[in-house]
């Protein structure tokens, strides 16, 4: 049984240009066009795979990840996931400045669907891994950006899951943080979790992923071995010094 199956996924966003009251009342033609974020994406990801998604800005990588996470309903097609999901779309989702670090750990855990009892069992490990033991009961608003990121990453990765969806999380943090992230992702991989990993960074895709897909303008360009996909993508990037950027 595959971990993730995407069948003919298309996603269309309605026109986002806010019409003025006059335009809306007149309902003239030429209204802003809907935006096609994904077109007929087919993917199958097997259990235990580390799967990369590469592509330029606005290519639809994050949209695809969110469709898999059940956040964006597909306009066409279907997606099936098997296993407990941990979507790490953005670090520190739902963090509240007024709550203490500890309270935020519990809140964040509940967002990922983990019970209070479960969080109680792993809270000490999270605090330990974040290295914020002495500040953990201070309100989060007193933390530096880096401290918030460390806490967020600790929560996100200490929570075990069968499918981990990672969206460009390596882009934040310093070098040592980066190393820790990599180590954690490797460990996810070793526990047999399926990892879907969105990144601009081809080096980490090559290092961490077994297979990958390259998405451009919402369509699958190539899918296959991570190194080959990265090569193909790199080649195109060099051919086009200024990659076409679609706006979301």
């Amino acid at each position, binding site marked *: 049984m595959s971990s993730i199956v995407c069948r003919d996924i*298309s996603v269309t*966003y*309605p026109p*986002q240009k806010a019409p003025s009251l006059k335009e809306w009342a007149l309902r003239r033609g030429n209204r802003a066009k809907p935006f096609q974020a994904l077109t007929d994406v087919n993917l199958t990801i097997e259990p235990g795979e580390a799967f990369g998604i590469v592509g330029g800005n606005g290519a639809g990588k994050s949209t695809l990840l*969110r*469709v898999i*996470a*059940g*956040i*964006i*309903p*597909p*306009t*066409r*097609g*279907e*997606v*099936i*996931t*098997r*296993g*407990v*999901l941990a*979507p790490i*779309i*953005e670090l520190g*989702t*739902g963090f*509240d400045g*007024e*709550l203490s670090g500890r309270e935020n750990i*519990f*809140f964040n*855990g*509940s*967002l*990922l*669907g*983990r*019970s*209070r009892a*479960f*969080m109680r*069992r*792993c809270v000490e*490990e999270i605090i330990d891994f974040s290295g914020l033991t002495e500040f953990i009961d201070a*309100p989060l608003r007193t933390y530096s950006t880096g401290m918030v990121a460390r806490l967020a990453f600790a929560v996100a990765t*200490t*929570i*075990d*899951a*069968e499918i981990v969806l990672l969206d460009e999380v390596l882009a934040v943090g310093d070098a040592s943080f980066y190393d820790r992230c990599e180590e954690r992702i490797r*460990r996810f991989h070793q*526990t047999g979790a399926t990892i879907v990993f969105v990144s601009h960074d081809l080096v980490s895709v090559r290092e961490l992923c077994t297979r990958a897909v390259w998405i451009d303008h919402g369509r699958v360009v190539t899918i296959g071995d991570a190194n080959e996909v990265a090569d193909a993508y790199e080649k195109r990037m060099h051919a086009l010094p200024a990659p076409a950027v679609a706006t979301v």
Partner: protein
Amino acid sequence: MSIALERDERVVHRYFAGQKTRFLQEWREILQSGHLLYNLVHRDLTVRYKRSILGALWTLLHPLLLTGILVIVFSHIFRFDIEHYEIYLLSGLLPWTFFAQTTVSSMAATAWNGPLMKRVRVPKSIFTLSTTISGLINLAISYLPLVGIMVINGIKFKPAMLFLPVSVAILAVFTFGLSLMLSTISIYFVDVREMFAVALTALMYLTPIIWPLKIVPPRFQQIIQANPLYYFVEMVRIPLHAGIIPSAKLLTVAIVMALASFLFGWLTFRRMSRGFYPHL
């Protein structure tokens, strides 16, 4: 080492085009997110007062101070001929405040948690539900000063007063339904929030909360009674102020409106909530 997950081997999610938000599915997801619901309510109740010195005491002080002001204005300056005016006032003001705060905060909570809905899959009605629950907890706490005032005034306990929770429950269903509808629509049309705030102010004065219905000439009383809030405020007030159970007619009207509100709230949510994403 990571702590081993409570593995449920059959966690299968399937999302497809044209999928409907089903009532039971949504409630099951809310139940599964019980911990999140608890945390949202907890955050609502604590964060609000976290930086204030008196803290949660404000939940008690707010209705007391407001009542103090209104009692001074309305029982000394404009005289209404009501026995125990402060009890009349507070027992009507509390359900009103619950209604007004819950509807407004639901819209705010749903909008504020937009970034959250963009990053995690959560049942989207959970924000309206958590706001309603924290509103109910605040309401329960605000009844303490009212009970105190009743004791000081020498009001004797009457069994009909125990009907209060039933009245509040009916009001809560009505409020939840309307809040769900408003917070759903306001994701698409932010203007709804401003419009509703103005409407609330008008409603506050059109509902017999600080004044008694009998000061209105009989021919206008019907107009006042066309306001749904009249029935809800009356239903919640009567058990405490008059010490009687609300009439069958009053209860029927309130229950029918509460169910209608719940139904329309849900239908609006079902129709519109799947399109939230690009608007969050």
